[in-house]
């Protein structure tokens, strides 16, 4: 659980706009709109962060309890992984 998770760097560009993140995955030629909770995690993921750090950020930003934050982080990471956006 202490492994660092990081967004892929290759052919992935993103911008934060009005609290949301818009990203372009150049490999799949796909645009992604990331909602506010995902946008909260995105900069951390760009730098690399552990699941614990990600959940703590969600808890702090949205007042979630630890279990709910951890579940949301897992779901978000699974969605990113499915799209091949995480570094392997």
């Amino acid at each position, binding site marked *: 659980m202490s492994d660092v998770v990081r967004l892929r760097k290759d*052919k992935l560009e993103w*911008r934060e*706009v*009005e*609290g949301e993140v818009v*990203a372009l995955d*150049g490999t799949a030629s796909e*645009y992604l709109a990331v909602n506010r909770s995902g946008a909260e995690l995105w900069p951390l993921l760009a730098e690399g962060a552990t699941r614990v750090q990600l959940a703590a950020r969600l808890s702090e930003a949205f007042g979630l309890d630890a279990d709910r934050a951890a579940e949301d982080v897992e779901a978000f990471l699974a969605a990113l992984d499915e799209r091949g956006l995480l570094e392997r």
Partner: protein
Amino acid sequence: MREVARTLALDLVAADVVHALREAGVESVLLRGPAVARLYPPGTVRAYVDVDLLVPPGALGPAGEALLALGFERVAEDAELRGHRPAHAHEWLRLGDGAAVDLHRTLSGVGAPPAELWAAFARHVEIVLLGGVDVQLPSPAATALGIALHAAHHGPGRERSLRDLALALELVPEGTWRAAADLAGGLDALPAFGAGLSLLPAGADLAERLSIPSGMPVEVALRASGAPPLALGLDWLLSTPGPRAKAGLVLRTLFPAPGALRSWRALARRGRSGLVAAYASHPFWLARHALPSAIALFRARRGGA
């Protein structure tokens, strides 16, 4: 949101091109685009429409080969622009996705030889990761200089250039502007630097504090005043030596090669139908701009632009 999408796509194009150039042994500095976007506050998007890369003057050939391999085409070949004012950059377009890349051998308003400009810009670069590729951006002083020169190049009619300038005037420390002025002095670019700054009141004040002289060459005066496009052509015609060369230039302006027309008018870049429409409207375009251009040139030559 469309602007964000386009900006992201251009970032990836820039990363691809920089990587391809590097594979071809050509170093480059990414002008404007992300370099200027760094000035903007987080959460705002500074949109850009093309990728501007400064390359060493002797590297335009291999750089062009690398762009051809990526599916780009030259907007105008050298032969199509023969006799006209030399361009600051080679323009490349990719029809598939509409991506546009300008390979700069120099910058508008710089009087020093391209090799000196390259040496000055390449000496102090900052590396950023763009689309997984290490990309060289100009130093803050070179970025500030580039913003002022770009504003001078487009004059008061280009909102985006003025917005960049306004933001830079607000956020860039005066010490950096002073370094930019030193850089401009070394590159024989002070007149255009001052002309660009003076497009905004805060910039005019800064130019005065930096003791930048107000005189400027006719080309700089025409660009900075937003003169009609034909004014620069008329100025070039007047400075072209000999009646034979002048007559050739007039003919090539009246009956331009396709590439020349594409480099002058956006309409001509919109595929075959756009080019046909540009040719059909060319006499009217010339007629419409002739008198205002002549007046603008007269004023600039008198020093009143």
